[in-house]
């Protein structure tokens, strides 16, 4: 399985998940759909690695999971951002902005 165009860059998946959950609790399918929708299909989440990522982030305590009924009535596992997660999101966003600013400067002037 080759890397499809638009797959999420290694290491940025965490940031995208945290940012998406900032809007409110959501299940894995919702997170994937929302990332694609908001990025206007520019980004595609590799689904095979979405769930391991969710479970890993859960271990760090940035998100919590809970079984709830989804929009269509089926029970789904909803993830929710914790206070620590919110803090982590801020620093990740900051880091990302610095990185992109740096990279784009180089692209412009180098």
């Amino acid at each position, binding site marked *: *399985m080759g890397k499809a165009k638009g797959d999420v860059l290694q290491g940025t998946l965490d940031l995208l998940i945290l940012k998406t959950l900032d809007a409110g609790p959501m*299940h894995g399918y919702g997170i994937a759909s929302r990332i694609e929708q908001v990025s206007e299909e520019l980004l595609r989440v590799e*689904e*095979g*690695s979405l*769930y391991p990522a969710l479970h890993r982030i859960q*271990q760090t305590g940035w998100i919590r999971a809970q079984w709830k009924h989804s929009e269509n009535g089926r029970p789904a596992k909803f993830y929710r951002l914790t206070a620590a997660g919110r803090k982590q999101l801020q620093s990740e966003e900051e880091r990302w902005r610095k990185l992109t600013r740096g990279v784009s400067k180089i692209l412009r002037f180098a």
Partner: protein
Amino acid sequence: MSWIQRLAASLRSQKLEQDLDKELAFHLDMRIREKIAAGAAPDDARRDVLRRFGSVDRAKEACREQSTLAWLSAFRQDLRYAARNLRKNRAFTAAAAACLAIGIGANTVVFSFVNAFLFQAVPAGVVRVAPASGGPLSYAEFQDWQRLNQVFDRTFAYAPGELFTIGRGVESQQVLGETVLGDYFRTLAVVPAAGRLLDASDEHQPLAVISHQLWRSRFHSDPAIAGQILWIDRQPFVIAGVAPAAFHGMMAPWTTDIWATAALHRDRFADRNMGWLTAGAHLKSGIAPHQAAAAMNSLTAELKRQHPNPQPSAPDPIVVDRPGLSTSPVWQVFVVMSALLMAVVAIVYLIACANVAGLLIARAAARRREIFIRLSLGVSRGRLVRQLLTESLLLGVLGAAAGAALAFIAGDALAALFPKSIGHGLPFQHTIDLRVLAWTLTLAVASVLFAGLLPSLRASRQNLAAPGRTPRLRQLLIVAQVAASVLVLATAGVFVRGFQKALALNPGFDSTHLLTVDLNLSDLHYSRPQAQDFYRKVRDAVAALPGVESVALADVLPLGNRREVRIPQIGTVATAAVDADYFRTMGIPLLRGRAPDGDEASLAVVNQALADRQPTDELLHRQVVGVVPNAPQWSLAESPRPFFYQIATQFDQPIAALAIRTAGPPVNFAAKVTQTIQRLNPELPPIAAQTGEQRLRMWLEPQRAAALLLGTLGLAALALAITGLYALLAQLLVQRTPEIAVRVALGAPRRKVIALLLRQSAIPVAAGTATGIAASAIVAHVLAAGIGAIGELDAVTLVAIVALLTTVGAAATSIPAYRALRIDPASALRSE
């Protein structure tokens, strides 16, 4: 898959697995619906979705690893890292593990003794029912209680501490037995290991229950043991079953081997005044002990009216309390000593932990660079602490393994130390079972907390800027260690002084040149005239031996069996029947009056304590002719109790003792005397002769054992503390070598360098000694309250301890000091 993953897989709960399945299924379903809504055929939709998702199994495996293996794999990593580190620093590992092995081993071995008895739980609602004086009950009294009481639903009575001869001829052996009546086993909730146990309906059958130990040693754990015949005191009994290994009977800490019905004691049933039983019962639900006591008191009052005693006796109310069912004379001492030893080994353990903590702190200082690099590479503090704690855990497990092995070896040596001869060689139970191993493991894990936590927390706060400053924490640890070892040593000193005092105690008779022989004619089944005749022959034959100065007969000797009678208006009084030659033979001086002559009957000699109560001749049914000084009768530690000798001209009971005054050392006569007696009747079971000194010494054995044991533990504690001190000084010297080198190079006198080290060692040792002595004064006080005056914390002990501490403290300082003197400034500075 490695073993650890398989382990994790087996541990992983079904719930988590189901959750994972459901979560992924939901995702795939939603995707399929989305495709179908967009117009795809269901089959195509499913295929597309699965292709896009990739391997579902791999995703699941990745999820599992994230959630459950996260800590496990980290732990595995930590373990590997810790093992590598410990292997690399062999000396450190060996020192730390040895400290823990001593600490944990000492705990394990003491616990293996205490375990067997302190946890022999008495079920809730079981009480002891006894007169306040502690006197025994007669069979008829117990029968009435059993029949008439309204407050108990089960009752039982027991007479522990009987010596039974089991088997016949060459196969016979003496064991500790107990007569049981009523619902003994059921009330105590004992379940059989084989066959069945005795209950109230068995009372008149010749039935017996054997101990697990006897079952194993004599019957090779024969599963068909029930129904076999066992000869007890030359009477056939049927074995009903086997008691469980954990049940030891009512002579704990000695282990009873036979529980028999009262079939051997039918001759005692009729006599209402013959007390020989102790009673216990289970309270009916809703009845409190004090209510039961009130009911029992009105019952005994009613019984007294029905069976008036011609001799009025002092009121003796019934007391109902939680047992203490053991009637062993050493039980109280055993409990206090167990508590003391547990406390002492706990201290030794803490000292060992403090040592390991000290070693870890020292090593953390040596690993500062490594730890700092790891921290700056982004390892989180929590992770680093966890890693260092894993090292402590590994050390703890190593120490526990070595400690358990140590305990296994030391257990038998320790069992041999315990006073055997008081109980006629009765064994103390000690086994390393699951409970003991659980305790050992608990200590290993606790050592992580005690020894590892502080050093690893400190280590994780390392920064390169702080150089080797005076390790104040380690100094404090050494103060505590020295104090604790002084405490243990001083406690040992109390016992040593008590032992010396007991040695010097006047037993009331002249133990030199004295030989004693205990005779038991039970197996011969003599009639009374036959017994009389036999004793006379024994006395004459022994008296005729060359070198024998005088011979006397008595039914009990001091520090031997107990005999008591109830005397109206005075109460229970200890007594012995002796012949007229007794006082001369035993070397007992008379304070007043005269020694009786050979053929006078109905005379008595009283001790000072009884004389003070001014008994009339009528009360004793004898004419009092003499008074002897107070002397210990049952044990060396007792306070004076009223006592009188009944002067007898004839002995006809199956049990008696011979006292022999010899011209030379009595031990030379032992063989000759026993042979002479044995020749009079070859059927007599083997008899043993003891010298007066041996008789005294067996009563000193508990003190001797305690002094030896505590002394050993005290020295182990001191050795650990001093090792800690030495390690501190050595480390300090290493840290300061460059500084010292500079000072010396600049011309500082070397004695200043030595003074620096001396200060480091003298201050904690002095502070620790002072604290330890203050604490031991308190402990000595508490001990005196617990088991009576064993000894005292006197100046001799204190001076000895201070001298010892000063010596070993100086020795621990001298090696680092010598090294400091030899520091060569040039090479020391070059190596920096």
